[in-house]
């Protein structure tokens, strides 16, 4: 991609060309009431598959270009996010205030999203199926079934690749061109996190290196796993030595067997509160998010986090623009604006998950160098070296993404794994 390109192949066009989705025939009606879905009627529920309109890749790209050419900045933006996922100071969010000051766009920020499936099932799907806007211009969804559904149903507005200069300049390799959204057609990462194993070596007596170490009878009743249909199956796939992203239904069967075997040792399949259980000793080892373990280390310094040697999982919360959004251009402006290193640093300082802008590390190092007292210097140095925000390259190699399951195989996948944590 770095050789000299023929003149008609502009970089953004090339980016678009590499996305497999563009080769499918898609027709996107943007901006008006979509023909997708007519709402729940007593006699049937309309499907929501994007209706192929026979347009080839180029025609689709022209549609997108035409759409964005018609958009005007309106001076306001509605942003829906997860709670505690943006910087807070006093009664406001400094990064949002700065954004308003620099661009003149006011932001209404609502922490409406508590869970992907619930948000999708209560806010996104019912409204969009009825052809109504969901409200916010930017929503933040984790890569997974819900995000894939949004793609399949053409419920997201493709991003304006010409307005992503900060993104393409500063986004880390992690954020650019992820497997679940090649070419960043629809999404730009907000933050990412790692799913690995949190454990207490003092209680266990030795270190935990990988998922198979959890199959230890001595740990029986002291192991925790996640109760969802992504982390649990993918951990099992890693445990049997398979890369989740390239796994086959045969692999899934073997992974389900592994998970069933593990079940006798598991104390509970957790929705949330595993970190507290680990900190107070109810659990000795558990599937965990790196950020949570870091937090609990303040309470219990014995806790450790490891990316399993068979493989850990990396997930990303992504910003995207739902269709029928009222202020798409303002949304684009914001989404690209947060990719400036100094803004990314502002956010990372508070949020403490993996930032999509690796240059934020230099910002922290500079802050540390410029610090006037020891406390500030130590603080920024800690941030710059935090493995939570800037993962080790060695860990990177062992991290996998969730696979994108084809629509006709989703039921098989769920049927295999749900009975394990929902018995």
């Amino acid at each position, binding site marked *: 991609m770095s050789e000299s390109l023929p003149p008609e192949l502009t970089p953004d066009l090339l980016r678009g060309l590499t996305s497999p989705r563009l080769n499918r025939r898609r027709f996107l009606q943007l901006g008006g009431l979509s023909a997708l879905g007519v709402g729940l009627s007593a006699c049937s529920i309309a499907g929501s598959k994007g209706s192929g309109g026979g347009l080839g890749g180029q025609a689709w790209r022209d549609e997108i270009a035409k759409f964005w050419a018609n958009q005007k900045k309106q001076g306001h933006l509605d942003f829906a996010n997860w709670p505690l996922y943006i910087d807070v100071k006093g009664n406001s969010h400094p990064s949002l205030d700065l954004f308003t000051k620099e661009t003149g766009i006011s932001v209404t920020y609502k922490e409406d999203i508590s869970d992907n499936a619930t948000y999708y099932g209560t806010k996104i799907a019912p409204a969009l199926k*009825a052809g109504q806007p969901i409200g916010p211009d930017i929503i933040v969804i984790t890569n997974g079934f819900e995000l894939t559904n949004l793609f399949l149903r053409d419920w997201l507005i493709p991003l304006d690749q010409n307005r992503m200069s900060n993104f393409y300049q500063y986004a880390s390799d992690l954020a650019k061109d992820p497997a679940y959204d090649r070419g960043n057609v629809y999404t730009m990462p907000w933050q990412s996190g790692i799913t690995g194993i949190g454990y207490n070596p003092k209680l266990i007596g030795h270190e935990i290196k990988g998922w198979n170490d959890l199959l230890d009878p001595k740990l029986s009743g002291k192991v925790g796993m996640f109760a969802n249909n992504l982390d649990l199956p993918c951990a099992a796939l890693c445990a049997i030595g398979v890369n989740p992203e390239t796994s086959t239904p045969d692999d899934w069967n073997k992974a389900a067997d592994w998970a069933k075997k593990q079940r006798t040792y598991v104390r509970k399949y957790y929705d*949330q509160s*595993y970190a507290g259980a680990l900190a107070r000793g109810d659990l000795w080892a558990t599937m965990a998010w790196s950020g949570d373990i870091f937090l609990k280390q303040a309470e219990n310094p014995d806790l450790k986090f490891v990316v399993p040697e068979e493989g850990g999982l990396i997930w990303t919360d992504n910003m995207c623009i739902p269709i029928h959004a009222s202020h798409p251009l303002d949304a684009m402006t914001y989404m690209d604006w947060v990719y400036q290193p100094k803004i990314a640093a502002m956010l990372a300082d508070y949020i403490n998950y993996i930032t999509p802008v690796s240059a934020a590390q230099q910002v922290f190092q500079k802050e540390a160098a410029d610090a006037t007292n020891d406390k500030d210097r130590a603080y920024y140095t800690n941030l710059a070296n935090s493995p939570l925000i800037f993962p080790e390259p060695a860990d990177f190699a062992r991290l996998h993404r969730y696979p994108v399951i084809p629509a006709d195989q989703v039921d098989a996948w769920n049927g295999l794994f749900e009975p394990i944590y929902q018995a």
Partner: protein
Amino acid sequence: MTASVEAAPRSARQPRRRRVGRGWLLPIWGWLVILWLSSPIIVMIVYGFNDGRPGKGVSQHWNGFTVTWYENLFVYSDLTEAIKNSVTIALATTAIAVVLGTLMGVALGRFRFRGSGSVNLLLFANIAAPEVVLGAALLSLFLAVNIPRGYGTILIAHVMFSIAYVVVTVRARMGGLDPALEEAARDLGAGPIVTFFRVTLPIIFPGVLAGALLAFALSIDDYIVTSFNNGTTQTFPLWVYGAAQRQGGSVPPQVNVMGTLIFSFGVLVAVIGAVASRKRA
């Protein structure tokens, strides 16, 4: 024996209550239960004073006493708004559900009429319906008729699942209502409305109060039905659950503080009520 059969005014007669023995068992049980019900609240109150890392969930380890969270109470504007919404919606729900439910309870308890069986079935079915289905079905109704989701739809939903609880508790009280009392009132020239407010309502008041308390509790604590029908209006259970999700199960200390304040306010109301009733007697 003949002496006690004579009609002496009850207030003048000294009841032969045995204060020892059985007398103390009941109150102890009662207070124990109240204490047990309140125990997580006590934990919550204590941890509202627990020092810890600002903005990132409650530490379960005791880090030292602090009142920082009380000073920084309104840091999370979403949280403050959520509480406001929850309380006002609960009050409005209680008001509406009590009115509608009491009327229904009185009708079902007082009259025998055609269709009362199907109304009973309707109420039972409403109590029995799982929340996910209730919420989803109601949302599809709102979407079909194009009602924007927000404060109003939350209110509609909450009243919808509270009415039946009020009816049941009012109904349980109606059995003791002697129709002769109402007839007597009517014979004395009182119209039906006056009869209702002066005769019926005071008698069934415990049932109405119980129903009101239930409706308030149901409304202020509802998650699933609200999550379907709230649009972008935030409520307290929704916010707390969402905050806990991303923090591995812990909530910001301000949540404990808010809870403490709500609880204290409630205790204050109860104490004032107790003092006022003492004055009334």
